[in-house]
Every structure is written in C-alpha cells, then in structure tokens.
C-alpha cells in the first residue's frame, strides 16, 4: 500500500510534537444518568444473570447489561459494539476490569430490546458475539495474556486455552448457581501477567526443559551479568567457551540440576531460548486465590496440578481438570465461600480427594526458607 502521511515530518521529528497529555478524563464519556447521580447511589440489585440495576438518591435507575468479550478483538467488533451503544444507550458503553463490556440504559423498558438485540448476534461459526452474564455468584470472564498471538516467552497459548475453558464453563457465565463468584485467570508463562497468582482458578504456561545456550552470539546480544542475576536459583554463571573454530568466547554455563525452567534468563538474554513444543511445555493449574477482604484475607493461589500438556486447539485435559475442580467446589462449598476458603476449611488433603486430583512431589514447596512454612507442623490431618 502506498504510504500516506499523517502530517508527521520525519525530517523534524520534534516539530509539533504533543506529549504528556495523558488519557482523556473519564467524565467526558459518562452516560447522562451516571453523571447526574455520580456518588449518590443508594443500592443495587442483580435482576438476572448479567443484568444489574442501580438506584440513586434522586430515584433515577440505571440498568446495566454485562456481556462477555474475547478481549482480543478486531475493529469491526468494536464498531458493532458502538453501533449497539448508539442504538440503545445514547452512544455510551464501558469495559470492566475483567474485559467484559457493559451497556447501560436509564429505564427498564429499554432492557428487553437491548437484551434481545445482543443475544441475536452470532458469529458465522455460531458462537455468541455478546453473551449476557458474568454477574453474581457465577463465573465471569477469564483474565488472560498474549500467548502465541504476540509474546516471545509464552509456554502456552492464551486465547486458545481461554476459549476452550470458557466454552466448557459457559453455563456458569450465564447463571449464578455457584457458592460465590469464581475468578479464573490464565498466564502464558510464570511471569504471571494478570491475576493467576490471586484467582480462584489459574492456569499458567510452564516449561520443563532448561534453556539452550547459543554460545555463538550470547556475548554479543546479551549483557551477561543480567542473565546471571536473572536466575532465582543461581543456576547460571559466566564462563568462557571454546568454539569449534578454535576461538574462545564469553558465555554462560547453566547447572541443569539447579534450573527450574522459569525462563527469566531468556527474558533478559535472547540467546537462551527454552520453549519446547514437543512434550516439554504445558500448563500448571493453581487454585484458591482471592483479592477481596471479604470474610477472609486475600490469598495466593496454590499449585494443585503439576502439569497438563499443551493440546491445541482445544486443550481437553486442561478443560477436564478445571471442570473437575469447579464441580467439586460447587457441590462442596457453603454459600459465600470462595474456592480457597472452601479448600482451607475441608483441608487440602480432602480437596485433592474430592477433586480427584493426583498429589505429586512437585506440589511440595522447596523454594528457600519460606517453603518450610508450607509443610505441616501439626498432627491435625484427615486420613
């Protein structure tokens, strides 16, 4: 395509340059009813899954319809959302912190036509474009990352795994029949971008082989001390390597038995790739995290499945394990009890039993002094 200038002059890059203007103020985009009643809300109700009503002191009501989104979307999807917002909501809409989309209307009679419109829209493949749900004690959108779409350190795919799991748990999105809300998150490597470390269920991309060292170029493209200090277990040390052509180069050596395949060194040094599709990379599943202060303090999620293989495009083993956990939780937990609170109440040995998960030595913490705190210093346990 021929080049079309925006008016930027590459000969004078700093001319007419606008910087540090920040994002637009949110107030510019508030629907009139929200703007009018800002800070004056009395109470709210969940009318049905995906539909909320907020009542203001003035008596005004605002009805919110929450719809799922794949997060990764083309401009045509955004335009379609804009079209819906223009048609029903005076051109206003918003995104939630879990990347759902909310359409807001100011009276009850506008809800039914909007709902009908949203549910009538489907992709040619048959999936809902705007499924309604994600409220209350159900499952909402999955916080996820880039995966094979864009990231270079991914050990698994994000969009693919998320679609497979959401398809399987779709009823939980459109209903509110769980003991408490269920937050599922995914990250495609142990960098854990997003919320896997503090979600009810999280799945994380995981490597099982140490990096390959490209001695030819390592010293040229990496800052060796950074690669050395990137390692949490100090498996990396600087060294000199004899090359086949007789030259000596600066490089690093990796103690394989100390490496736990986190991939941090690859993040710092492009000459240490470790991704391995064939039987190496996969996922681990963590459960029991939460961020809210409700009843119990926030919790980290804990690893309960040491490995599930990458099985694109539908990841059946991952989907099955997640389903096992969700089913056992919805059957066993009390009302208001988050997954982590439930597991801690019944005891983790019981959790593994009712979820039918295998407990392996991989799940026993062995990282530095704090590992000790995770072992059992009591005779209180169930057979």
């Amino acid at each position: 395509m021929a080049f079309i200038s925006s008016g930027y002059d590459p000969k004078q890059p700093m001319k007419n340059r606008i910087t540090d203007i920040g994002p637009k103020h949110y107030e510019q985009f508030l629907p009139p009813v929200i703007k009018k009643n800002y800070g004056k809300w009395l109470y709210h109700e969940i009318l049905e899954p995906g539909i909320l009503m907020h009542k203001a002191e003035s008596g005004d009501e605002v009805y919110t319809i929450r719809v799922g989104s794949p997060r990764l979307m083309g401009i045509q999807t955004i335009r379609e959302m804009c079209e819906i917002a223009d048609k029903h909501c005076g051109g206003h809409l918003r995104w939630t912190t879990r990347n759902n989309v909310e359409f807001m209307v100011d009276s009850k009679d506008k809800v039914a036509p909007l709902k009908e419109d949203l549910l009538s829209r489907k992709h040619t493949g048959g999936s809902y474009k705007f499924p309604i749900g994600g409220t209350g004690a159900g499952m909402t959108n999955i916080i996820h990352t880039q995966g094979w779409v864009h990231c270079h350190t991914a050990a698994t795919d994000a969009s693919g795994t998320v679609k497979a799991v959401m398809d399987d748990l779709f009823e939980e999105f459109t209903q509110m029949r769980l003991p408490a809300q269920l937050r599922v998150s995914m990250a495609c490597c142990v960098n854990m971008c997003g919320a896997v470390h503090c979600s009810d269920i999280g799945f994380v991309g995981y490597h099982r082989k140490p990096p390959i060292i490209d001695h030819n170029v390592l010293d040229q493209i990496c800052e060796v001390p950074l690669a050395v200090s990137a390692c949490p277990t100090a498996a990396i040390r600087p060294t000199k390597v004899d090359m086949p052509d007789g030259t000596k180069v600066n490089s690093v050596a990796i103690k394989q038995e100390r490496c736990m395949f986190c991939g941090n060194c690859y993040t710092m040094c492009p000459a240490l790739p470790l991704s391995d599709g064939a039987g190496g990379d996969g996922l681990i599943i963590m459960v029991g995290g939460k961020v809210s202060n409700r009843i119990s303090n926030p919790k980290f999620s804990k690893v309960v499945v040491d490995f599930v293989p990458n099985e694109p495009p539908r990841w059946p083993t991952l989907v099955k394990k997640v389903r096992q956990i969700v089913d056992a939780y919805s059957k066993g937990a009390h009302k208001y009890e988050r997954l982590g609170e439930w597991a801690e109440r019944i005891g983790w040995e019981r959790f593994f039993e009712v979820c039918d998960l295998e407990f392996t030595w991989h799940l026993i913490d062995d990282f530095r002094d704090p590992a000790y705190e995770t072992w059992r210093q009591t005779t209180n346990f169930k057979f």
Partner: protein
Amino acid sequence: MATVEFKGNNFEVDEDGFLQRFEDWNPDWVEFVMESEGIKEMTDEHQKVLDFLQDYYKKNGIAPMVRILSKVTGYKLKHIYELFPSGPGKGACKMAGLPKPTGCV
C-alpha cells in the same frame, strides 16, 4: 539479520537497528544512526553520554542504570531525552553500539 552499508563499513544489525556486535562499532555508526534517532548534529554532550556508556559496558558487561548514567554525566533524565529523543535505551545505547535492552520493555 540485515547488513547495512555506510561509508565503506558493513554493519550487521537486527530488525530494530541495533548493532549485532559491539566490536563492529566505529564513529561512522553514530553518523549512520543519527538521522533515524532524530539527532541533527553531534555535540560534546552527546559524545559524553556515548563515551560513558561504552566505558561502562566495557568495564561491567552491562549498560548502566539510568540513575548511574545521570549521576556520572551530570545530565538529568530530561536533558538526556533532549539529547536523544528516543531515550537512553533506544537512542543512546543504540548509537553507542551496546546490545538491545531486554526484559519487559
């Protein structure tokens, strides 16, 4: 990897225009990169930053942290951006021939 030719030099570079080998650096490289980094002419201040980056890299094997660059040269971050509009990493390190910055950048 691409090779660029400039004033009789062959510079091997990556897709972001960073030198593949620090040893390939010579003053012609600076002249070659200047334009793409939005720098009209090299001043003593530019040179001071480049010299320090190279000395630090040769001595320590890493690029200095921004605070160290600031403290040693005496240039505040704002001034470094005035000298190198793309910043200390993409601008100054590239011109000095240091490896491309890594991590979550």
